[in-house]
């Protein structure tokens, strides 16, 4: 027989988490009808690319530069890592454009927009540190060019493109951890607030009310 203690911090955290994101909202099986558009696909494509990036990057980190430069399987994973990054940025840019023109911060969704935009900004140095971590002439060229930009911005003293150890640490730990944490926060906030509805042709008090409310879920879209 268990005894419930409502004053414990675990109970409070659980109640708050379940209150904000009940299971049917966290793992919804229905979406509003307006989500049936290709422009809504690019968020999940960015997410899929990120999963491939993390997976291929983990293998590269385990095997090391001798493997990714001089074996055919290493070349394959190196290329997979590069092209999943290219696709990630391609998809996230279209996702960002789509959400910008939808004004996706409407209806109390400011934190959804901010976490998405900051994810894009943090992903840029994450990619840059990857380019300078390749251990080849390309990496040398990029690091010697980019260091001037960092020095001009006044951050070269603590973000040194010529310091391989520092760049590699940023690339395989600090920045990916930040991107993944931001993406998790972004997805949870999307689940909490729902997907932003499109603009109505004519703004009325009813449509304004609909924008601020939780979107309807009775329309099935699988």
């Amino acid at each position, binding site marked *: 027989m268990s005894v419930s203690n409502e004053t414990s911090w675990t109970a409070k955290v659980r109640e708050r988490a379940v209150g904000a994101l009940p299971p049917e909202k966290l793992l919804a099986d229905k979406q509003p*009808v307006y989500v*049936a*558009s*290709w*422009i809504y*696909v*690019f968020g999940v494509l960015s997410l899929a690319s990120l999963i491939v990036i993390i997976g291929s990057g983990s293998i590269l980190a385990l095997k090391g530069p001798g493997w990714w430069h001089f074996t055919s399987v290493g070349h394959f994973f190196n290329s997979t890592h590069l092209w999943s990054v290219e696709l990630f940025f*391609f998809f996230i*840019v*279209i996702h960002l*454009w*789509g959400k910008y023109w939808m004004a996706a911060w409407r209806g109390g969704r400011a934190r959804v927009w901010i976490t998405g935009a900051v994810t894009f900004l943090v992903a840029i140095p994450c990619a840059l540190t990857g380019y300078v971590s390749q251990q080849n002439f390309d990496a040398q060229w990029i690091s010697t060019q980019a260091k001037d930009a960092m020095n001009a911005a006044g951050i070269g003293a603590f973000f040194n493109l010529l310091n391989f150890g520092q760049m590699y640490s940023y690339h395989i730990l600090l920045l990916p951890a930040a991107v993944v944490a931001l993406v998790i926060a972004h997805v949870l906030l999307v689940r909490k607030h729902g997907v932003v509805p499109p603009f109505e042709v004519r703004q009325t008090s009813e449509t304004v009310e609909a924008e601020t409310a939780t979107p309807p879920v009775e*329309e*099935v*879209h*699988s």
Partner: protein
Amino acid sequence: MIASVFNLNHPTHTVHWHFFSMSVANVVVIILLFVVFVAALLIPFPSARQGGSQ
């Protein structure tokens, strides 16, 4: 070893127009971004055609 599909053994081709200077590869990617963005807005989604209207 299989040669690259594209011959990359030459200096980068760039697009120059007044102050604008960018590699052809980057210009192609930016054009592709616009094309895919417009296509995503205009091409109907499959389930929307199968009676997903309100």
